[in-house]
Every structure is written in C-alpha cells, then in structure tokens.
C-alpha cells in the first residue's frame, strides 16, 4: 500500500471501506464457527456491503444511523469502533454495549451510530423520532435507518412513513432488499406486481431504487437523499436491491441446508459489489488491485488483533449484573425522600 496516495480518492475509499467490512466479517465468521467464543446470534452482511458503505459515505459525521439485526456493516460503515464491536461479540466488558447487547445491539455514540435492534422495524420508528427531535430543535442533522425487505411488512414501517412524510422529517429510510426474510423469498411474503418503493412513495415519501451492488450509484443516490432531507425536503426512501451470501444467522453459506440453490448464490457472488467497484475503477486507477490486496492484509491483521484482544479481555463482573437497568436515581428510601413524602402526605 506504499503507493496509496495520501489523499485517498473518494471512489477508491468506498472500495477500501467495503474491503475492510468484508475482511472483518469473513474473519469473524471463521472464528465464530471454529472457536464458538462469540456467543451471540450474528447476521453477516457479506455480499451486501455496498449499501451501508455507500449510504454512510453520503452522510455527514453528525448524522445519526440506526440499523436492524444485520448490524455490523452499518456500524462499521458509520465509523463504529472495531475493537468495541468485537469485544461486544465476545460478551466482554470492553464491548460497545459492555457485553450486555451482543451482535444485534451495537451502539457507538461517538460515531453517531445510534443503535441497532433485533426486533424487526423498531429502528424505523426510532429513526423517525430522532428526525423529529432534529426538526423540533432546528438541527440540520439527518437520521438514516437500515432495514431489510422483511421489516417493511411490519405495520410500523407504514406508520413511520406516514409520520415522517406528514412532518417532512429529515430521515432517510434505507431498505436493503436482499430478497429474503430468513429463508422466505419475497414472492412468498409480498404480492407480485408491487414494490416496496412504490409503497413508500404512496405514503408521500420521496422514493428511489438503486442497484444495491453498485456502491457508486448508492453513494450518489445517498447524497441526493441526505441533501434533500437536510434541506427540509422531507423523508426519502431508498430501496437497494442486493443479496446475502451467507445464511440468515450464523457463519454458514446461503445454500447450506438447501435453503437456497448454490446456483442462485453463485450468480450473486459473481455480482460481488467489491469486484464490480474494482472493475469500474481499474480503468482510471490501475493500482487498485494492489491496494485491495494491501487492504485485505491490513484489515485481516486489524480484525485478528481485535479478536485476540477481545478474547483476552475481562468478562463483565457478576456484581454488575443489574447495573444499568435504571439510571442513577436518588435512593427513594433516603431520609430526604421520606421527609418529602411525609410533607406531601400531610398536605392532603
């Protein structure tokens, strides 16, 4: 990588970011399978990296990002702290959620990765609420929220679109449509001849579709979407058509257990978003293949180190099992509280 320019070209940087997430997730998947030290259900985005990378590149650092269960890639794309994520997967105190949340409950306030959640659709409404806060307080921040095609079947999706459009809230809804909900194909869950984009548009949300394996297209659509939302143009919905190579949860492949055909998975591997971006760039930047190789090595080392450190890190202490259930409140049974209560009781 010695020949990588100091000021990295933004297009090249999208490739770098995808390679990094790919290497991190592939390495995590291998360790997950072989060592079983990450005792948390884990949903890999391998093959889907272009959407979070492109969209987060379009956002400003101050913009906040939410995600669903397929959380690692949005977290990393938004700049979430890697060692903290890996420690979280290992259930360690150094985890970004102190080992309490696991893979599906990543958060990094410093990076404005505002949280991922396991229950489908929740973060669609939560991001809408974040946008309401920006709107009410006059901040020019935008909220982005990632979710799958399956989550759009939850009623909260329609409810949130309506609310966001009604108040023209600065929120970008990003649907990573990978054609499946666990093993159920889209056609088994949504009527033929309809589209999620059309549904979003019918709710008054500016809605766009994009090739989910074309990181440059996504970044461009994302920029337009974020700019529109920031400028007070109201919410934007982006449907990014992509595909998940691995099984729904866990490190296996999408064709394991006969869930899907090998041919189908292979046809999408052939459309790998990283490979496509590299091919696009190769004409203008012939060193790109070398860089990718360099990044692969670099990020493999980075994730290996994070895993080593996470394994060595301490577990949370048993004495802290219940900590964080409630915020620090004055002990209600202190003298003061009692005195106060007595005063009130006396008043009546």
């Amino acid at each position, binding site marked *: 990588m010695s020949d990588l320019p100091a000021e990295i070209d933004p297009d090249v940087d999208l490739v770098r970011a995808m390679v990094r997430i790919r290497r991190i997730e592939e390495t995590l998947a291998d360790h997950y399978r072989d060592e079983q030290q990450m005792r948390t259900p884990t949903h890999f985005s391998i093959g889907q990296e272009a959407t979070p990378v492109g969209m987060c590149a379009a956002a400003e650092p101050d913009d906040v990002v939410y995600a669903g269960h397929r959380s690692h890639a949005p977290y990393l794309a938004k700049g979430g702290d890697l060692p903290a994520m890996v420690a979280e997967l290992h259930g360690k105190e150094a985890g970004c959620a102190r080992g309490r949340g696991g893979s599906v409950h990543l958060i990094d306030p410093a990076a404005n990765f*505002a949280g991922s959640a396991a229950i489908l659709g929740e973060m669609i409404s939560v991001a809408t*609420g974040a*946008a309401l806060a920006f709107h009410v307080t006059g901040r020019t921040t935008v*909220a982005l929220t990632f979710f799958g095609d399956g989550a759009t079947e939850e009623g909260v999706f329609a409810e*949130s679109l309506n609310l966001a459009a009604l108040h023209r809230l600065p929120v970008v809804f990003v649907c990573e449509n990978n054609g499946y909900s666990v093993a159920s194909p889209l056609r088994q869950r949504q009527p033929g001849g309809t589209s999620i984009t059309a549904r979003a548009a019918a709710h008054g949300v500016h809605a766009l579709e994009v090739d989910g394996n074309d990181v440059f297209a996504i970044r461009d659509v994302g920029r337009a979407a974020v700019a529109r939302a920031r400028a007070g143009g109201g919410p934007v919905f982006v449907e990014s058509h992509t595909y998940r190579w691995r099984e729904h949860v866990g490190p296996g492949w999408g064709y394991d257990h006969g869930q899907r055909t090998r041919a189908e998975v292979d046809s999408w591997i052939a459309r790998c978003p990283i490979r496509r971006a590299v091919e696009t760039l190769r004409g203008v930047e012939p060193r790109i293949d070398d860089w990718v190789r360099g990044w692969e090595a670099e990020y493999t080392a980075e994730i290996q180190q994070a895993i080593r450190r996470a394994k060595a890190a301490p577990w949370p202490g048993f004495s802290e099992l219940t*900590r*964080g*259930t*409630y915020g620090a409140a004055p002990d*209600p049974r202190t003298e003061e509280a009692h005195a106060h209560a007595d005063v009130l009781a006396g008043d009546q």
Partner: protein
Amino acid sequence: MRTLTYSQAISEATVQCMTDDPRIIVLGEGVDDHKGIFGTTTQAYASFGAQRVIDVPNSENACAGVAIGAATNGLRPMVVHTRADFLFLAMDAMVNLAAKWRYMYGDHGGVPVVTRGVVGRGWGQGATHSQSPHATFAHYPGMVVAAPASPADAKGLLVQALRSGDPTVLIENRGLYPREGEVGLEPLPVPFGVGRIVRPGNDITVVAVSLMVYEAESAARHLAEQGISVEVVDVRCLRPLDDAIICESVARTGRLVVADTSWARYGFAAEVAAVVAENLPGALREPVRRVTPPDCPAPVSWPLEEAWNPGADAIVRACLELLGLGRNGIGPPESAQPALGFDGPY
C-alpha cells in the same frame, strides 16, 4: 394550600415542566383538541402550540418508537393515550426497547419517555376501554410504573417522571380527574418507589393504588364507625414498589386486603401478597384478601359494570370477613338506574 382537581394538577405539572424544560414535547391523538385529554393538555397546547403539543396519527406503535428516538436525541417526550388499553399496540416499543435500552446498550443513557394512559372506567366503556394494565408493564425491569391517586401525587409523580432518566408509565383513572385536593404551587417531584400512609390504623392494612385508594378510604371511614381501625396504604408506584411501607404496616396489623382496579391473577394484588409472603410469613393472622374485578372482561351493562368494578363495599366486606364479623357491607347498592345529567366525556 390551594385546591386543584386531579386533571388540573396534571395540567399544571405539564405546563410548569414544559416552561422549565424546553426539551419536553407532548405527543398524542387529540392532545390539541377541544377535549384536551380530559382537560389535561388543553393549557399546554394553549401555551406552547402545535410545535410542542403535537397531535399524532392513529399509530400507537410508531409513536412509541418515535418517542424513543426523540428521547435518545435530546428531547423529553410525553406520550398521552386517551385509553390505556391502546398501550398494547405500543407495547413492543415500550417493553422491548424503551425499558431495556439503558441496560442493553451498555448504560450509555436512558430513554426519558413518559407515557400517560387513561383508564376508562365509566359510562359503559366495555371490555377494551376499561383495563388498567399497570401490572403488565410493571413486570418488566427498566420501566417505572406509577398510578397516583391524589391530585398532589398526580402532579408530583408527573414532575418526577418528566425529570427522570427512565421510561415511565403513568396510569390515570378517569374517575380521579374531578377529585380535588391540596396541591402545592411549586413543581416538586414525588420520588418513585415511596408509598404513603393515607390513613393510619391498627386492625387491618388495606394496600391500594390509584382510584382504589379512595375506595379504601371510604371503606375505612365506614369501618371506623364500627370501631374498626383500618390503615390505608397508597403505594403510588408499582415499580419500584415500596415493599417496606407495606411490610411495616402488615407487621403491625397482621391482616392484609389489597385493592386494585385490575384482575387478581398475576396482578398488583398478587405482587403485594407475595411481598408479604416473602418478608413476613409469620405476621399474617388471616388470609390475604384480593379485592379486584371478577375474573372476566369488563361488561357494559350498567348493573354488571357496577358489580364488576371493585369498590368500598367489597373492601368493607373483605375486612369484616378477616375479622370474623360476617358479611355486612356498606349497604344496598344504589337504585339500578343510571343517574341523569351525564354530559360526557364518554
């Protein structure tokens, strides 16, 4: 001290807290309309307008999530439901997200959302507009659940909720709104988890919450005429629950009646009985009595609804039974004809 109604006390707390804290917003179906949630949001809307008192579409689930998103980005939303029964639609966001947020994301911060739910007793509300789901929420750690009885507590607990860092459910029985009581002018918080002795007594402890506190007081007054001394404990909060005040009282009286507007099974009355069984097994001289609605949904038909709602009469009967004094209640129920003069709200 001044006297306010329960709904005026809520309204005043809302306006005072909103004045002090510009982060507070109010969300709810019809919070801006002529009824103003039984008059509790009218003044806030008049004072702060549609920017901060926001009418919302009929989308309870999304609104609960929206409140969480707003709360974790610097606002302090208060969500208001004209019927607590609608909370089931918001329950996922409230229980799976708001209540767990602080813990599940590693104690980085909490979700200061206040959710007010009105319990719809009165005028034949029926099975889906009469429920008091306080125990349902109070089962889940991370929530705070309060059900004030007095106007002063309605104000004080709302002030506390609007300043706290945890998601809080406030259950309000409509029957309380017109009740008057002394209420301090200042917005002083009533701490969560601290009950109050409403009326001291020696023979029996009646533990109650919300509307049932008044029923318990009226039962106590009636029994006092017969020389029976009833201690009435208003726990005010279901979570945290003031175990100590319950146990101190029962340790003295040796007899416990629990009165609640929701069902006995797995409800508030069960928890209070369990607290005593856990802490004072020897103290009980008589069986615990749960005075609650019968184990069926709420009927509409007027006399059935009257029979379904537990009242002072049932508390009196339970107390007399525990004292081995037979089954004499307060007297025959009123005439089986609804009174005229009703003019809504329904």
